[in-house]
């Protein structure tokens, strides 16, 4: 069989590492390497304690969910109704939010860490079976996780009587087949039941109450669970010693676009600022060609945009929210001064319009409508009325004030995140987020486009640096 080189992108540094410790090894995905580097010791420690003690340990570490919403894992596990079994664990490995690149690295490079994390979660929260849902387009991640599961089963680490204990649980590998919205947890569950992957109506707000097959179900992100082995080995005090009180530990962040060194970095949570990340020597080393920064998306394609005015904000939800955006899935996309803003916004609106599942009208119709009008504007065929129409359509998806950042240049005050919405899930609002940000922060680019009816290419670059 051909061996594949590791996917590139990860940039190591002199920083605390929780989930990427093993990335330095070429054979990081093998059981042999995993065990030689403390692997499955966290699970052993967990199994030597009552499961309630493990749950307490996770709660006191406050591991914020890394899938987008940032809900603490230990608290979520406690939301299951009393006395109802079976309960399931569904692992969200569907990673498809524009800009996001971390879960795939964790699955390809350290699959055993994820498996160990799943086992610890099942033990602590009393979950009877685990389904590991991997995005369909990730062939290598599927191979690596399958191989790791086969090794772990054979070594008595998963399945019947884990490590010879009274704890038994299966981890079933499941593949998706290409649909962004399936990353939304209730859509993930629908998909796992063999249905079209459409989000369910809320309430219930958490599948912890009614989830897979109507049973209590915990849905957690790949990175969230990958934190557990380290936590069990080192304890919650060591975990909370990194980062801040409200955002402890580290998180993986992918920085893409017009920086000198795009890459995936494991950063200290809560304290690292966007300026550190974009300009720091240990991170992205500044904007390419020494250009000026025009704007950046701080937390995945769904997040309202920031400009240089927000560079000093740290990766701390309690500060980024009031400033008008969200940290989302740890994806920063950077646009330099050469970027054609309306065209850049269109790439995201295209994405969300394309990925609408069609269940609610404002998203199905509104997303497409935004896409068509914006396309017209970008192509130089738009009118001033079109610009007003964009806002009007947007306000049908998200009534009231849409969050945006403050801008000194424009004398704008920030409108805090989140927004109101008329849709079941966030795909609808996400189609509007880039349009709204672009229109609010760069009105002159739209005005010029409408006045001169001309087009310029998306970016001044061809080949990457």
């Amino acid at each position, binding site marked *: 069989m051909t061996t594949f080189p590791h996917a590139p992108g990860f940039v190591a540094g002199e920083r605390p590492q929780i989930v990427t410790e093993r990335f330095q090894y070429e054979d990081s995905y093998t059981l042999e390497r995993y065990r030689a580097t403390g692997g499955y010791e966290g699970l052993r420690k967990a199994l030597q304690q009552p499961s309630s003690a493990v749950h307490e340990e996770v709660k006191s570490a406050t591991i914020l969910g890394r899938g987008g919403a940032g809900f603490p894992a230990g608290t979520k596990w406690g939301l299951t109704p009393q006395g109802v079994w079976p309960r399931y664990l569904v692992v969200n490995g569907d990673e498809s939010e*524009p800009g996001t690149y971390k879960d795939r690295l964790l699955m390809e490079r350290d699959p055993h860490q994820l498996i160990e994390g799943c086992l610890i979660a099942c033990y602590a929260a009393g979950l009877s079976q685990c389904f590991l849902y991997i995005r369909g387009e990730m062939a*290598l991640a599927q191979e690596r996780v399958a191989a790791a599961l086969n090794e772990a089963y054979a070594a008595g680490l998963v399945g019947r009587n884990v490590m010879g204990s009274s704890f038994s649980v299966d981890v079933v590998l499941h593949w998706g087949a290409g649909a962004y919205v399936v990353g939304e947890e209730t859509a993930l569950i629908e998909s796992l039941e063999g249905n079209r992957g459409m989000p369910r109506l809320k309430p219930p707000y958490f599948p912890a109450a009614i989830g897979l097959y109507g049973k209590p179900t915990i849905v957690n992100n790949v990175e969230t669970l990958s934190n557990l082995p380290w936590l069990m080995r080192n304890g919650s005090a060591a975990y909370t010693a990194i980062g801040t009180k409200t955002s402890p530990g580290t998180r993986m962040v992918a920085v893409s676009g017009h920086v000198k060194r795009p890459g995936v970095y494991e950063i200290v949570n809560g304290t690292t600022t966007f300026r550190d990340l974009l300009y720091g020597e240990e991170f992205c080393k500044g904007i390419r060609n020494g250009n000026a920064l025009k704007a950046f998306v701080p937390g995945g394609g769904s997040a309202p945009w920031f400009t240089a005015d927000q560079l000093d904000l740290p990766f701390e939800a309690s500060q980024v929210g009031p400033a008008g955006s969200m940290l989302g899935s740890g994806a920063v996309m950077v646009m330099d001064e050469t970027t054609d803003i309306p065209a850049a916004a269109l790439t995201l609106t295209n994405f969300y319009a394309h990925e609408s599942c069609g269940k609610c009208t404002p998203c199905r119709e509104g997303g497409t409508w935004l896409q068509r009008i914006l396309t017209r504007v970008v192509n130089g065929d738009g009118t001033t009325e079109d610009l007003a129409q964009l806002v009007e359509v947007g306000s049908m998806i998200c009534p009231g004030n849409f969050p945006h950042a403050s801008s000194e240049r424009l004398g704008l005050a920030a409108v805090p995140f989140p927004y109101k919405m008329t849709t079941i899930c966030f795909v609808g609002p996400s189609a509007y987020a880039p349009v709204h940000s672009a229109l609010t922060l760069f009105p002159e680019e739209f005005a010029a486009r409408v006045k001169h009816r001309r087009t310029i290419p998306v970016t001044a670059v061809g080949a990457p640096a």
Partner: protein
Amino acid sequence: MSRLSDDNVKLSREIIARYPRPKSALVPLLHLAQEQDGYVTREAMVHIGELIGVTSAEVYGTASFYEMFRFEPVGKYLINICGTMSCALMGAHELMHRAEEKLGVKAGGTTSDGLITLAHAECQAACTEAPCLQVNYRYRYRVTPEQVEQLIDDLRAGRLAEEIPSHGTLARVRQSVSAERFVGAVSPDVEAAQPSWLAGKAAL
């Protein structure tokens, strides 16, 4: 013709057994069918319906929701060029132009020899390595227009046959669990007791 082969039926039964309800195996079985024929045939959908106990209309209902399933033949190689924001910022449109010119087909089309299908794709979770593309879901990172041309030459010359299986084959390693190690699917329809390890006693 084009029902699942005996080997694939056996594999299907193994996969179905892992789930509390057979219908959960639907997407994995559709992948098996696509691996067998390069696309999902009508007969395979009828067969899958029989295996999991749903109508073929239900099978198609689910299958048609997902981007990866094809219901008509596609090229042996499917080139997906990402055009979402990070890739667009780094020159993805130029890649698409070059690929279209070199192949003589537009995005969505297949070359007349049936070898290569070209398609637009959305974010592939490789954004820091933009612009990127996948051939049958195998990545190419930080691709230049020249490299796209080279890639097409290599595919045509069969130089990548070992690395890249034909369209439909995803993972070449499958989960396989021995009967002794497998706990068994936990049915939602049978009220279960609290798991033994939750009784407050240490498990190890």
